[in-house]
Every structure is written in C-alpha cells, then in structure tokens.
C-alpha cells in the first residue's frame, strides 16, 4: 500500500466544483444534503421532505462508467444519500453550473426566460434534474422532459413553463463548462480515475468492500451489521426514524455486484445494480414492463436505489417483487463461502419475514431469458401516475397457445403481507380457453387468494375489485380489443 492511499483510506474523497474534498470527520450517516448545508454552507440545495419524494434536494453525481472512458452524470436525492457513498465521485450542486464569468447555464437561463420559477424553493432541484438531462440530451422530447422531472414537485407553476424550459435549453449557446462533451472531458475523467481506491474505504462505522469475498467475510465477522446500497430506504431510518444504525457495510463499491450479465440461462442482475439500469434492461427484454419501469419511483430514486435492495427490503408494496416473481426470478444468496439459490417467491415467508440466515446476503437476482411464446405485462395502480407507491401491482406472464392458456404466473403486490402469486386465479386460467369469461373466472377466484388490508392508499374492497379488474384488463389488452390504459389516449 502506498503512503498516499493509506492516508486516504479513512477519509471520504470526492470532487466538488473540480476541487478535491477530503472529509474524515463527518459521521457516516450524515446525508449529502446535511453536509452541503450545515458543513459547507452551500444553501442552494434545499430540504423539502427528507425522504426522497419532492426533489428539492436534487444534486448531480458524476461517476466513472465501468470502462472508465466517460463520466455518467445522474440526478440523485441528496437528502437521503449518506456522504461516504459518494466517495470517488464528482458532486455537482446548483451552485456549480454557472460559467466562470457568472453567466447562467443554459438550463438556468431557460428557466428564467420561460418564467419557470415562482417561489423558487423547488427550483434548484428542477435545475439539477434538467441539467442531468441536458448533459445526456440537450434537445429532449416532451416525454423525456416530464420523465426527467417526475421526481421533482413544484406547487406553484403547474409545470408548463418548466417543461418548456426543458424543451428549449438546447437552443442556447454552448456554455463554457458544462456542455454536452463534459462527460468525456479527459481532465475530468482523469481526475476521477485518480480517486480510484486500491484499498476499500473504511470509516468509523462504515466499510465499503471491493469484492464479494470481502463483503462475505465482513458480514460473517459482524452479522449485526447493516448492508447499505442506494440508501433510498435506509436513509429514511436516519432522517425520519432518527435511528442509530449499526455498522454499515456498503455493497455498491463491489464492482462484481454492479454487473448485469446475460447468457442463455437468463439475465443476472447484481445486488448493486441501480433501479435505473435494472429496469432499462428488463424493459428492453420485455416491452410490457416499459410502463412499470417508467412509473417505478422517480429518476433520482432509480439512480440511487437498487433492484436487489427493493427485493431485499421485501415490502409487499415494492413494485419489483410482483414483476420478478412473475418472470420466475431466482435469487443468489451468499453466506461466508456458501452460495445457495432460491426462487424469489420462496424467499418471502411473511410480512417483513424472509428466508435469510444470519450473515447471509443477496448477491444477485436472475430471470430466465425472454421466451417469445410468453407475454409479459405489469400494471400499477396508484393515486398519482408518476412517483407513487402502488395500491395494487400486478406482474403477469402468460403463454397462450391455440387459444388455450398453457402457463400463467400472476403475482400481486399490495394484496397481502407479502408479494405473492394468485394460485387460485392461476389455476382457474391454466388449461382454460383464453376468453373474457376465463378472465372473469380468474377475477372471481382472486377472492380465494387474497384478503387485502385497507389503508391510506386504498380500501380492502377497492384492492380486491381492482385486482380482479386487472385480470380483465389483461385479457382485453392481450386480445387487442381496444385501449385499456388512460395514458394511451390523446385528446379527441
């Protein structure tokens, strides 16, 4: 170990406005937002909710792509992201964007010219979400803009002028610093390459192993430690529940866990693969998942959180669960040197109970390759279209041959203490002629499968009725008998 790396092993290092920042004295659960506002007195980034749901705290993180050739800049919620997790990355805030002469960045200028701010409190977050989009595509289509903004709440404008700013930001002259070529700027790339660690980051209460073996050993040594990936749930334990966390083992520095591998056995998604990447891959393989991919949380959450985190959290209202159960996913669990495989649906034993042994952790989730004979759909019901938690979610895989249902997997979220398959409904369908009355029978059979609870998202009665209707929708959509989704229509 060089003297240099030994010095920095116990400090979080990242770039801020091109300057190397080295922090060794901050608590490992300090959020990036708290750090910016309280330690750096950079108050442009705002706290609106401290739970990753309003976007006022949006900042952009730059991270070296796997091949090291370019930097991927992504919007994230700084309010629930712990500071040590940005080690080795570049942090950009709303204060970072202006040209050296003080000229506003095109995103900022477009927001001014389109009258995109009123009270202004949400504005820095919108600017940063648009900025991440700008680096990716300065001339986006409307749908890209509304998508990029779906994690940012504005209570004043009605969004029209902000959307307009997003559509116009590419019309402005190229800024001096943050233009489209910035992600491949050799100096920036070199600066981040210079932050790569030989040895894992180790802080008081925080360890970021580099290999799965190191991770397994660390968890064996400290079975009470808490695994941390994107922190989109664990962050709230600190900001909302004010919990003192046990030692943290951070999985996202393990390169191997950041991989998506495809072969003839299927698609394998590592534990540290972000939701954004995982849903891109899944929706690429199954077009019926595109809407779910778009409506799952928000871009800043998807850029931080991981699919495996969603599965491991095991909430019955996590949208990843019904979809992956329907796809027939297997999970890879590791404990010490032992690895075992389990079908995902077998992992969930009861509300907040999993078949997970002490010292064991989720390494990857694997789904079988797409089968052209199988039709896959995913439906989500919530009060709001974007960035909401499902009242009911359905993942469905259906193989119909010669008008007969040969195989069907129907997995529901929001209907029980765990996400699980609707066995009675599946049984009603399997081997039956695929008709409206078969869907009807399956919808009725759901009443044997589920007795859902009622809560603030929906009553028990609505969940049961709507879940049945999703099976009716499945039939209408599969048979192509007309539009079944409200967002498929334009005005008359």
């Amino acid at each position, binding site marked *: 170990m060089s003297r240099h790396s030994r010095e920095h092993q116990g400090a979080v290092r990242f770039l801020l406005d091109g300057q190397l920042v080295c922090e060794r004295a901050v608590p490992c659960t300090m959020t990036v937002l708290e750090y910016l*506002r309280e330690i750096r007195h950079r*108050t*442009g980034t*705002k706290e*609106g*909710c401290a739970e990753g*749901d*309003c976007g006022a705290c949006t900042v952009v993180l730059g991270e070296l792509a796997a091949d090291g050739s370019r930097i991927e800049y992504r919007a994230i919620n700084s309010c629930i992201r712990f500071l040590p997790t940005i080690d080795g990355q570049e942090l950009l805030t*709303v204060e970072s964007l202006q040209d050296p002469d003080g000229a*506003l960045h095109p995103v*900022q200028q477009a*927001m*001014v*010219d389109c*009258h995109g*701010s*009123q*009270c*202004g*409190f*949400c504005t*820095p977050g919108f600017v940063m979400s648009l900025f991440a989009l700008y680096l990716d595509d300065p001339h986006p289509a*409307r749908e890209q*803009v*509304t998508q990029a903004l779906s994690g940012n*709440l*504005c*209570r004043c*404008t*009605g*969004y*029209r*002028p*902000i*959307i307009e700013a997003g559509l116009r930001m590419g019309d402005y002259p190229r800024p001096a610093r943050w233009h489209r070529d910035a992600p491949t700027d050799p100096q920036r790339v070199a600066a981040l390459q210079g932050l790569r660690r030989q040895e894992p980051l180790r802080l008081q209460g925080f360890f970021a192993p580099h290999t799965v073996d190191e991770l397994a050993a660390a968890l064996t040594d400290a079975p009470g430690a808490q695994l941390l990936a994107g922190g989109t749930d664990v962050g709230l334990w600190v900001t909302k529940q*004010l919990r003192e966390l046990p030692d943290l083992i951070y999985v996202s520095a393990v390169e191997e866990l950041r991989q998506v591998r495809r072969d003839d056995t299927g698609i394998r998604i590592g534990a540290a693969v972000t939701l954004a990447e995982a849903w891109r891959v899944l929706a690429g393989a199954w077009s019926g998942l595109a809407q779910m991919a778009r409506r799952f949380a928000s871009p800043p959450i998807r850029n931080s959180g991981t699919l495996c985190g969603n599965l491991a959290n095991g909430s019955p209202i996590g949208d990843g669960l019904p979809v992956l159960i329907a796809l027939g996913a297997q999970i890879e669990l590791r404990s010490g040197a032992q690895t075992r495989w389990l079908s995902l649906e077998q992992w969930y034993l009861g509300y907040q109970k999993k078949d997970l042994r002490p010292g064991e952790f989720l390494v990857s989730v694997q789904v079988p390759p797409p089968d052209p004979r199988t039709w896959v759909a995913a439906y989500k*019901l*919530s*009060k709001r*279209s*974007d960035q*909401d*938690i499902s009242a009911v979610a359905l993942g469905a895989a259906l193989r119909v041959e010669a008008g007969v249902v040969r195989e069907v997997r129907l997995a529901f979220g929001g209907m029980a203490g765990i996400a699980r398959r609707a066995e009675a409904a599946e049984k009603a369908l399997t081997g039956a002629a695929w008709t409206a009355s078969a869907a009807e029978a399956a919808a009725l059979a759901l009443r044997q499968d589920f007795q859902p609870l009622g*809560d*603030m*998202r*929906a*009553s028990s009665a*609505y969940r049961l*009725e*709507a879940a049945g*209707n999703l099976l*009716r929708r499945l039939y209408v959509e599969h048979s192509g008998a007309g539009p*079944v*989704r*409200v967002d*498929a*229509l334009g*005005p*008359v």
Partner: protein
Amino acid sequence: MSSAPRHESAHLHVSGRAHYADDIALPSGTLHAAFGKSGIAHGRIVRLDLAPVITLPGVVVATADDVPGDNNYSGSAHDDPIFAQDRVQYAGQPLFAVAAATHAAARRAARLVRIECEPLAALLDIRAALAAGSYVLPSRSLTRGCPREVLERAPYRLSGTVVLGGQDHFYLEGQIAIAVPQEDGGMLVHSSTQHPSEVQHVVAHALGRPLHLVTVQCRRMGGGFGGKETQPALIASAAAVLAHKAGRPVKLRLDRDDDMLMTGKRHDFLADYEVGFDADGRILALTVMLASRCGYSADLSGPVNDRAVLHIDNAYWLEHVEVVSHRCRTHTVSNTAFRGFGAPQGMVVIEQVLDEVARRLRLDPLAVRRRNLYGSKERNVTPYGQVVEGNLLQPIIDEVARSSDYAGRRERIAAWNATGPVIRRGIALSPVKFGISFTATQFNQAGALVNVYTDGTVLLNHGGTEMGQGLFTKVAQVVARELGLPLSAVRVSATDTSVVPNTSATAASSGSDLNGKAAQAAACAIRERLARFAGLTFGVAAEQVRFHDGQVRAGDTVLGFGELADRAHRARVPLSSTGYYRTPRIEWNNTAMSGRPFFYFAYGAAVSEVAVDTLTGEFRLLNVDILHDVGCSLNEAIDMGQIEGGFLQGVGWLTSEELWWDAQGCLRTHAPSTYKIPTASDWPQRATVRLFEGHPNHEDTIYQSKAVGEPPFMLAISVLLAIKDAVASCGDGAAGMDLCAPATPEAVLRAIRSLQSSASGSGFT
C-alpha cells in the same frame, strides 16, 4: 416565452442564491428546536415527564409554563394554545418544544419526553360533529326569496349530497422561524409568513412585551397558498419563547411530517342540497346545508365558511335560495386559509347541482349552465345583495366554448363512449366568478415606503409578502412606471414590521391591488416633489416635467433621474415617502350577511377533457382550454403562472390529493410519499391558456388590473365535472351520481359501480 418582466428573484432562484429563512447565516450559539406532539386526538394530559431531556447538556425545554405572556397564537378566538395545557385536542398538537445544538439532537430529545394522557372520546369527522352539535362558531344562514315554498311547487326536484376532501398546502418550504434576542428586551424574528404583523402581535403577547420591541422580517417564502397566514405564529412564538428562555437565538424548522401533522389545511366539506328546477334546467329554488370540518379551534374558519356561503352562487342567479352553514368542531388539526378560502367548496356544490340537473333532464350541462348565468341588467343581484357589475361570464364562456370546439368534441366523445370501450372520455366547461376583497373590511388597507437615493436608485418596501406569486415584481413595476425608471432601478426589500407597520395578511388575492396602490401613492408623492423642484429649477410648470426611461425632461432640459434626485436632495427636498391605500366602495354587514363585500369580481372559464379507465378508476387530464380575466394585466407572465399553477393545484385537490385519517384520528398521509400533489406529467399534453383581453377592470384598481391569486384555482372544477361526464356514460345517462372529491381511482370506480348497479336494477328513472 413571454417578454413580460421576469420574477425579480428568478436569477437567484435558478442559481441557488435566493435566501429563504433556512439559508440565513445564524449568529454563533444559535440553538435548533423541535416540537413534542400529542399522539392522540383527544385526551387529558396526566403527566409530561421532561426528566430524560432536561438532564441533557445544552438542551432547553419550553412548555406552557415557560410562556411569559399569553400562551396563545390565535389571532381570532383565543383558542389556540402555543403549548397544550391540561388537554390535547388533536393528534399532532404541540405540548412542548426542545432546543439543542443541532436540529437532529433537538428532534431526538423531543422524542425522549414521556407524555402520559388519559384518552377522551374524540369527534373526528363532520357527521359526528353535526350529530353531537359540536361547533367552533355559531351556525349562520343566508336566505333570499322563499326557497322552501318554491321548492314545493317546482316541477322537478332533486336532492343529494356533495362530499369534498381537504387539502394540504404542501408549500415546498416548510414552516420555519428564527428568533434572535435583541438588546433591551427586543426580539427579531425571521419568519416564513404571509402575515408578519400577526406574527409580531403573537410573539409580543407570548413574551408579554409591547409591539415596538418585536420586529418580524420575511424576504420570501417558499410557497404559502394560505398555509402561512395564521400558522407561522405558532412556529415563531414557540421559537421566541425558547429564545427568551435560553437567552440565545433559536431556529425552529419543522420537518415535513411535523409540518403536515401540525398545521391546518383546507376545510373538508359536506353539503346536503335540494334543488327545484324547470324543464329547461333553470333553478327555481335551492336549499343547501353546508358543514365543514374546522378542527379543534376557530382559526379562520368563520370567514372561510362565510366565503363558502358567499360563493354558493358562483356564476348563477339564484332567485330563491337558502344556505345554512355549520362550522364543526372536531378533534383534528384546526383548518385554515387555503387559496380560494372556502369559495372553491361552495362553488363545487353549485356546479355539481347543475350537473345533476342537466343529467336528470338529459340536457347538455353547458346549456343548463348558460340558462342559469347571472344577467347584466337583470337577474344580476347576488343572494347577499351585491349587484354583479362588469359581468364577463357570457363573453368568456362563448369564446372558450368556441375556441375549444366544445360542441364538436362533445359529439365525438359521445360517439367514442357509445361503443362501450374500457376507457371512457368526458368533457366539461365550468365558469368562475370570484369576489375580490377581504370580507373583514379592516384588512382592505395597505402601506408602502419608497426611498429614492441620490444616485437615482429606489428601494421599495410594502406590507405585502412574496411567496412566489410575483407580488414584489408587480409592485416594483408600478413604482418604476410612476417614476419613469427601468425596473432594474427599483429594488424591493424584505417585508419588515419595523418599516411598514400594521399590515394586512398577503391573502385574498389582494396583494397587488392593495400594495400596488399604496406604492403608487408613495411614488407619486416623490415624483410630484421632484416635478415641483425641477419645474422651479428649470423654469417650467411642474405638470410639464416628464419622467421617462430614467430621464427627466423639464422644458428643454433633459437630465438623468439620479442627477435630479441628487440636486433635489441638496436643495433639501425629501426623497422618501410613505403611501397608503384603502379599498373604496365596499361595505359589508357581517351580521346580516348583506351589502357589498367585494370591490369587484374576477371571471374565467375552463374546458377540460379527460379519459377514465372504467376497470380501475384511473384518469388522465388530456386537454384543457382556459380563458381567464385579469383586467389589464400587470405582468402577463406572472398572471399566466398564477392561472396555470392555480388550475393544477385545484386539479390536485379534486383528484389525487387525499388526506386520510385512521380510526384513531391520526393523519396517515403526512409526507409526499403518501400525499400526492400533481407532478409534471399531470400537466395535460394539450393546454391552451389565455388571458381574456380587452376588458380593463371597470373599477379603479391599479392600472385597471384584476387580482389573480385565487380565482384560477376554481377552474379545476371543470376537471371533476369532466370525470363525472365520463363516468356518467357507464350508466343510462340520467342517473344521479355520487362522485366524491378527491376523485381518486377508488372513488371513481365506486361511482362507476353504483351507476352500473343502478342501471341494471329495476325502476330507477
């Protein structure tokens, strides 16, 4: 892109350099605070065990016993304790506050206090309160004509119930105050407030000090919408009590969950109505029982409910009408002002009634609306006796119906629905007529201070507050125009009770009407002095001195405004002036509920088109056409922003924003994860929003403009009606429909089911 002047802080907003209260650099030694709250809706406080907290080093705790003056933050009925004493009256009510070195430490410490309460029976909703006769204020009624007799004789009659949910303000910046002790017993308070003077009063009374010792400042809020009219007094007074006790500055910033649990919201309403009408759908008589959930205390519930009564007519002539209004006391958070201030609830009722009437008669709802509109010469007196002057309803409705092709689209939608698809479409047009002025007459006044400096720059201060609505920009435009200066020469400073005293709340859409006129008066006074001075100096009549584009022309002499200001100062001409304004022509007998409460009305109309999924109850807003009256716009971009933003906020209220309390009376939707305001993709893919041009305000308002803050909110009623229109296609077209707001997927599906089952049942006509 509009070329109208930009928001005065736009460049600061986009670069993160606009300072909100939480961004103010704090004096060293500042403590951070958090509240301790009740976990139950109603109970007797048995014991508040502070022992685990007071032993912590550097922690200061305040309870009711630590309030040196009056433990109350209500500006109206003296029924809002800063810290609950003896009894808790809603889940979330503050019992104490803790100050510590950091925000997190204070929040942790607050959770250590052991609160012991003996639970008492709680009234949680409107029906329960009505049954128990539990009210925060006496019920009121407004009657015109002989509604009951006419109802008896009416050829057609309908009765029904309208249920309307409340709404959280969800300003992006939560409630916050910083109290900084000053010398000689003074207290400086930075507060995110629409009503600095009320904060000043409450803090002074809580500390037991005269008003001149308390100064309240607010440069800007990160959104208000009515939620920062009375509520900030709680935050500020608790911070001041802690600061007083600790002898150090205290910052009290509410976490989002605390904010949503502790602060009042839009009143939810219930209305039972009975309407008599003729075969053309003309309303002959209407009786309405309005009841609202006020929560545990009065707050602004009196005037909110009054405004609901005064807007039960919306745009329509009601010859025989009776409205009874109950202000229900419940063991829930005390509801408060929210954009529209009761009017939206009243207006939804009449719009739902007209819809039901139209459906019953199988008429186009728009035709029924038109038949019931106020006239210009007759049928033009409101139930409370104000003549509707300057009525623009007819031309606005005609124009937006034409430009949106309402009739053609209604036909195409009927054809689409006739094939029985899963996704149904619906369309609706609804108008808005909204009365401008505070119904409490005393609030209809404002003051301003304009300082001209010797370089010709201007500093403006007025009693209004900036919450994003663009008030500072508009008032600066007024001053720039009066002094013939570029807008950049005028700067607006923070609202400050020590600069302009005894101010009204920035509320009731009145900000630019009141403060614009007050600032105009101040600027004119200075301009007249300067004109007199220039006239004398350059030998021309004062009236011939012209101020334009930063230049002053006096006969053949042209000089810069700054040069004139400098010369005037040397000649001992004062360059500072206050200005004052009070709204003319209003007179209101609050007891009789009659008179002219409103200086004028603002008008508008919207056509909304939706798609509804009959399997799930989900909906999308696909298209909206809005035409809205702002008189002569002071700033078209800002006015458009108010219209669009108000509209979508209204859409949220009526569709996705659901406040949900559990059976124990605990609010379970207290964060954005569970409480869903609209996002960017909820703005319709097609939207045509226009100002109704060529119609200056017929009253003498600032440059003949009209207020715009609240009226557009109610354009969103068209969306609820369009959803109902789509749902109605699932039944036989003439059946009554109970679609509650918010029209969540669940509520919509329930309405569809009830129509389908009634259509398949026998004998319903």
